[in-house]
């Protein structure tokens, strides 16, 4: 199944070929968790603070669904 993945801010260094806000379209096996996907992409677990699916927070052990728009996000805030 296919998903699109975005990474932001300090996590972009691990997927340097992606432009800002650009999605990586990937095929992943059924039953893949977000933690597994994170590891497949080489994103360090301790630097991923938030994971979103279609704009909603998910947990690392939740399972990826076909067509998901996924974002891995480091520590961010501001004002």
């Amino acid at each position, binding site marked *: 199944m296919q998903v699109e993945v975005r990474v932001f*801010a300090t996590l972009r260094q691990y997927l340097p070929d992606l432009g*800002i806000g650009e999605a990586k379209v990937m095929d992943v096996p059924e039953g893949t968790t977000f933690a597994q996907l994170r590891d497949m992409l080489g994103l360090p677990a301790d630097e991923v603070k938030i994971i979103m699916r279609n*704009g909603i927070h998910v947990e690392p052990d939740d399972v990826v669904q076909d067509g998901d728009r996924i974002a891995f*996000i480091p*520590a*961010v*805030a501001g004002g």
Partner: protein
Amino acid sequence: MTRKILRINMTDLTATYEDIPEKWAKWAGRGLTSAIVFDEVDPTCHPLGPNNKLVIAPGWVSGTPAAPSNGRTSFGGKSPLTGTIKESNSGGLSSQKIAKLGIAAIIIEGQPKDGKWYYLFINKDGVKFEDASDLLGKGMEEVDRIMWERYDHKPAVIGIGPVGEILAANAGISVNDPENNPGRYAGRGGLGAVMGARHVKAIVVDDKGGPGVEIKDMALFKKGRKKLTNAILAHDLTKPGGGLNAYGTDVLMNIINEAGGLPTRNFSSGQFEGAAKISGEMIAEMVEKRKAGMTGHACHPGCVIQCSNIYPGPDGSIIASPIEYETAFALGANCGIDDLDFVAMMTKECNDLGLDTIEMGNTIAVAMDGGLLEFGDKEGALALFDEIRNNTPLGRILANGVEATAQMFGVHRVPTVKGQSMPAYEPRAIKGIGFTYATSTMGADHTSGYTIAPEIAGVGGKVDPMTYEGKADLSLAFQATTAFIDSSGYCLFIAFPILDIAEGFEGMVESVAGVMGWDLKAEDVVELGKEVLKMERLFNERAGFTNLDDRLPEFMRYEPLPPHNVVWDVPDEELDKVYAWVHED
């Protein structure tokens, strides 16, 4: 030496240094500006009339040696934009210099009988009232430059641009930064018009030879300072090279967009297809590509977080400083504009003319909604600043903010609470921040209770942004803690590390306790913060505000917000819980 109140009377052009009365002795920063406004300003006065006052106060730790990020100044008065009490908080050079002169607060009252304009020069020897007629009509870039030519020691320059002179409701107060740029603003709520109504164009502060800040318990202060600094340097968000340092506050652009909470095209969508182009990552890329400007800029000496930036143009010349998330949202996404250079050029105009960027961007967006321009018309948007500079009737309307403009253009989608327009988080998609917008004593304001930290960023816990259960308590806890931090002189951004790192929180408390000679516990923070909120709330009640003013605009209840297609569905009783305690204690 003990701190003094500097009272400046513009009616008879006198300045007096008064002992702090007992009732104000414990306060600084926002606590002090609000206490003084509460005691001395009639809540029913007209904000531009003779009976309003402008109060300026550094925080408890401002100007102390090496306390991190301690240079925030509170500006207070009755707001011409909202009609409520107002505290607007700025970085820049002013806080540390005022504090080092031994001044707890400057109160500016009265109006010159001769109708002339003045600027004030304050140093260790006292206050001089100088003729400002040669500065009238000048933008803040020029005013800052002139003052640094005129005075030695790189003084702080607090000033108003042309829109402050015409007493426009969206006039902010500029403070210069270490490079003498005018970009640090007490922007929100029109306090620049309160300063203008006193015919004060600028206040120049030189702290050379001043007595410095008294620290009652140096050992405790040093212990606290160290713990706080360590927490800031350890937290992923605030450490060197962390999110804020590398990308500035605009690191949020892509994230809030991803969450579907980025107000776009006058609050008609929560997602903007051009978000990446105006994001913090793009600012960093431009700085790198154009080999000019910088990220990781400090808005005042001693900030260890350094979230500010200086944005370069295509030819390497500097356009503006800083480009914040709020700026990029308001002048960018909310106007449908995805060009960072134009966002920067409009920011420069705001900083020079003396406009709050949030209110200004939202004003252009409302005017676009009303048909003045197409969404996305960046040239048209930029040209509107000429209308303001030339003081045309259209320019005057725009300079008075969102509500004035919405009325002129027949727009029903008016994203304001108590007259002040919303910052960069959509309350339909992020409910907790809606509680803060609705109930804050300041009108719609994110900084007054930043629930985004746990709702989106997972800082200080994690809560679901789409639900409203528990959000009244969450918003109150943030509002109270913020009122304390706004009184401390510390930048509010220290909140992120100290919410996650208990030692850092203790460090903040101990450093304040050390300066004041107090026995202060972590649990006192919320109690002191609530004392500040209570004064502000009571002022507003006496000005005529009721629970019915603590509501979000009607359109948010029936217009679903894409992409989540959610409306504001929070029952009014939930909102009324936030301040129920004021009359219960």
